[in-house]
């Protein structure tokens, strides 16, 4: 249980920070596709008897590079969709070969936050630090290419290199979080809190801080309730994300409605 709290907290911090950029860049599809597709790699790793994290890492990084490469030659969303289904199709193939699939697939897809072994904490923390470091380096060019692509181009910031870097950060985040919390939890945690924070504040620094806080609150509540009710943790995270965004939207709309006539 202690391991779960530590792992969930680490995951929430990373998801909150990376999620801010995902929402800013309108990259929700990629943020969904990379962790989800990486699931195929974990299935393959289980099949050949390697640590699932290695399979996840290979598929996540391969998927990120593949999406970047295909996206330059065609529509970006089409490239993302096709890369995702190819990785998942491979996952389906690997699953059909392995013997005990139903339980394994379920925990990979929807997480098993209540059973984190302590030897997985170190790699999770390491990947998390790598993620934050990469984002700290990329922070200024990422903001520039996200908000004012023309200015970035004029300043000689390579939009494509930044895009690839960003995809790799998402891949890193996916690798560290999927084995703990599952594809679903990871994606919901990146989108829900960041979207809520984005609709409440305009300043990027405040939005990142708020997004991390909301992600932490979401995960802690979800883990606690899941522990009490025995229902899957992914259900609570997904629902809480949508509910918090809905509340934020209603609140801002009412505030705007109150100030507008005055």
């Amino acid at each position, binding site marked *: 249980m202690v391991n779960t709290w530590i792992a969930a907290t680490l995951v929430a911090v990373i998801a909150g920070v990376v999620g801010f950029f995902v929402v800013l860049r309108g990259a929700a599809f990629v943020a969904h596709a990379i962790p989800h597709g990486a699931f195929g790699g974990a299935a393959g790793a289980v099949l050949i008897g390697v640590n699932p994290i290695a399979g996840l890492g290979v598929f996540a990084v391969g998927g990120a590079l593949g999406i970047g490469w295909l996206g330059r030659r065609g529509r970006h969303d089409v490239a993302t969709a096709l890369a995702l289904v190819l990785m998942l*199709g491979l996952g389906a193939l690997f*699953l059909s070969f392995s013997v005990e699939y139903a339980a394994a697939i379920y925990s990979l897809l929807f997480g098993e936050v209540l059973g984190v072994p302590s030897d997985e904490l170190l790699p999770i923390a390491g990947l998390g630090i790598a993620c934050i470091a990469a984002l700290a380096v990329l922070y200024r060019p990422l903001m520039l290419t996200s908000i004012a692509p023309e200015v970035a181009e004029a300043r000689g910031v390579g939009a494509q290199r930044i895009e690839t870097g960003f995809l790799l950060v998402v891949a890193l985040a996916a690798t560290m979080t999927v084995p703990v919390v599952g594809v*679903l939890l990871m*994606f919901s945690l990146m989108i829900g809190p960041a979207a809520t924070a984005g609709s409440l504040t305009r300043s990027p620094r405040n939005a990142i801080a708020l997004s991390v806080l909301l992600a932490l609150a979401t995960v802690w509540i979800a883990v606690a309730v899941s522990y009490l009710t025995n*229902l899957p943790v992914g259900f609570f995270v997904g*629902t809480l994300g*949508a509910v918090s965004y809905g509340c934020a939207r209603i609140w801002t709309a009412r505030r705007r409605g109150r100030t507008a006539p005055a």
Partner: protein
Amino acid sequence: MNQVLRVLFAPGFFASGPVHAALVVGAVVALVTGAVGVFTVIRGQAFAGHALGEVGSAGGSAAFLGGANPLWGFMGIAVVAAGLIELLGLHRPRARDVATGLVLGAGLGLAALFLYLDATSSSTTGVAVTILFGSLFAVSQQMLPSIVALSAVSLVVIAVCYRMLLLSSLSSDLAAARGVPVRALGIAYLVIMAVAVSLAAETIGAILATALVVGPPATALRLTKRPGGALVVAGLIGVAAVWLGIVLAYDSYYWPPAGHGWPVSFFVVALVFLFYLVAGAVTGIAQARRSRRSESASRLAASGCAEHPGDAA
């Protein structure tokens, strides 16, 4: 000749009832998703299409829990999700992206809950795999009439709205100026897409349905620039991928590891991806050749070449 056929089609292929049903359902679904998918790709709604498929899996698992056919569950939730995406995602593309993501997250949460309840209430553990990854060979014969009817309705709606839909997909401003109800059409389109994705989810699985909705249309749009032609080409590519996938999956019972077929969804997805790459390579080569030809032609013209005096005249 007979031997060639035997190598291509494993014995018993043409006599098997499930294979017949799979061939018919696969072709019908591929035609519908091809037609609907061309608009999905033109409108840039691949994410919404994928989200509807995955959210639908919540409905599929809920229907399984209640003992109903998963198709109705898929469709009910997918249509509701389509409405929510349209409602939340105002007019800006980025808001739409986030709205789709939120609906997808919430839907996946419900799917987690229902799949968990499925697994605990019935002792069959394979439900998650069937709903998420599907199997064409497991499509029940009784569902055939409903699948064909739903497909026909979707195709008719697409045919009736074809001109309006195309105009609003290419330029919503122009369509609005011409008096096309863009908002209503957008919602109607998402509902049709929800139906098409649900049909695909029933056949190749909820999370792989995207392959049929996005792959063949994107391939077709690489090969032809005319939208009408793209609808036909997308349908044909989809049917080719599904049928080849069925043949390969049937044959794979004789491949290693022996006595265990490879999943048909995998073959369909792999073929769809392969077609997309090949189409890109073909158009790339054609474009390079065309530009080289025009380049050498202009060089000839510039050097005042006398080889073709008639050209200059």
